[in-house]
């Protein structure tokens, strides 16, 4: 009962969000009236041409930027500033270079007053194991590859147990193989925990593979052009890409994104 009831109230409500940047070359309307509801256990992937405001939207949900007008509610509460209920994974990893892998993962845990040191240690190790870096607990970020750094960043975000995970092109800087590997791992983790995710990517295949819903954004000023339910069955894996339905969705979404891309060129 409780679960069903919760599902009726969106986890995230984005209401008429508008963002205008005032720069030296005048105003940039980055977002223009974005409305979106995200429900519990959804994996939302956002695609759209470069500069359409994807990162801006994510930053507003995270509380790192303020909307010029409109509002975002998370669990019914208006977003004002950051909060540990919303974890973020950045494209540039953003690991603290002076901390070891373990201390990076423990950064957020140390700020949680209700945990003992043993619990913090235990939680950190649990997530470091999940991302397969137990051999590197005492390594510094400079000693890790890009893929390993992003694994640490993901473990760090998971460790504080946010109820919503925001990811801005987390695999964007990685090579194809590492990317495929991390996609598969993320998919597996999501299938187990069903943590609500808001995931930005340029890669349409990645979006379809991971998402329960793909959001296509239109060229600047950014708005939501279409929401596509992804009906590829679970459990998914790289082999899901072979399904005819996958190809169909891919062509459909890709064409839509490409049209928006041409809009930008004009």
């Amino acid at each position: 009962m409780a679960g069903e009831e919760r599902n009726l109230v969106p986890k995230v409500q984005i209401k008429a969000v508008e963002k205008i940047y005032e720069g030296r070359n005048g105003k940039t309307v980055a977002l223009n009236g974005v409305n979106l509801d995200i429900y519990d256990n959804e994996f939302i992937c956002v695609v759209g041409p470069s500069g359409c405001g994807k990162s801006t939207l994510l930053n507003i949900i995270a509380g790192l930027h303020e909307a010029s007008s409109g509002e975002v509610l998370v669990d019914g509460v208006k977003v004002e500033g950051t909060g540990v209920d919303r974890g973020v994974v950045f494209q540039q990893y953003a690991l603290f270079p002076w901390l070891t892998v373990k201390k990076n993962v423990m950064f957020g845990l140390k700020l949680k007053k209700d945990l003992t040191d043993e619990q913090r240690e235990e939680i950190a190790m649990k997530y470091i194991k999940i991302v397969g870096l137990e051999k590197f607990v005492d390594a510094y970020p400079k000693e890790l590859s890009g893929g390993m750094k992003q694994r640490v960043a993901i473990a760090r975000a998971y460790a504080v147990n946010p109820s919503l995970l925001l990811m801005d092109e987390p695999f964007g800087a990685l090579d194809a193989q590492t990317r495929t590997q991390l996609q598969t791992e993320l998919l597996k983790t999501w299938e187990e925990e069903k943590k609500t995710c808001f995931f930005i990517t340029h890669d349409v295949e990645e979006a379809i593979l991971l998402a329960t819903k793909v959001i296509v954004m239109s060229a600047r000023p950014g708005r939501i052009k279409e929401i596509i339910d992804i009906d590829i069955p679970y459990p998914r894996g790289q082999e899901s890409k072979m399904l005819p339905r996958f190809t169909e969705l891919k062509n459909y979404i890709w064409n839509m994104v490409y049209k928006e891309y041409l809009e930008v060129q004009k």
Partner: protein
Amino acid sequence: MNKNKKGDFVSRIPAWTWTVLSLIAAILVWSLLSKGEVTGRAFPPLLEVFGSYTKMAVDRGVFWSDIASSLISSIAGFALGFLFGVPVAFLMAWYRPVRNIIEPWIQFIRNIPPLAYVPLVVIAVGVGRTPQIIVICIATFLTISITVFQGVINVDETLIKAARVLGANDSVLFTKVIFPATTPFIITSVRLGISVALTTLIAAESTGASAGLGMRIRALSSTFETQPMMLYIIVVGVIGMLAEKILKFFERRLTSWQEKREI
């Protein structure tokens, strides 16, 4: 980047060999210069230079007290400059008005040679050790505050964002992110500060000091005693190198996490 392939002849020679070779070359060049009629006036034979140690240390008995006096002034001046410079740098980076109030003054005074404002300091506080310390303090403060300030405002924005979303408030952000991220700049500021403290010695000790390396170099130059003057100049350089060695030691411990070019 090391362009020598591993194992080739050049890369197998231990690093210190080059330093020794460089020292030998310097001695040779010096010896040649000391033979020249014109250049010989500025470069007296090395043996005479080091021989003048007896004159300064034993006959006149000022060598070690000069070193001690200069060390006291520069360490005290540097320490004060550091103590004021670092917090001011953070305040400037943190609070915009503080920056707008202070930064123009720092930029204004920074390019004035210390020798120019030395008389003002003497008029204000009189002669003795105090004006020396004040002059060195001003010079190091300016360098340190500007360097650290640059470091603070260049802290990677995404690190600050990452800390915020993990639940960091302002004080955590400052102590756990901005401060450690700035350590390499603080070390650089110490490096520049030491150098400024030493190069300001002559100006600082022109305040009617009764001892000191800078004061002695000026005095010896006016009596054309080139040998001991050279000795003193070498001493200043050596002090600088020793300070750098000590700093390197701390740097290795504090910023080993930094990505550096492989050399």
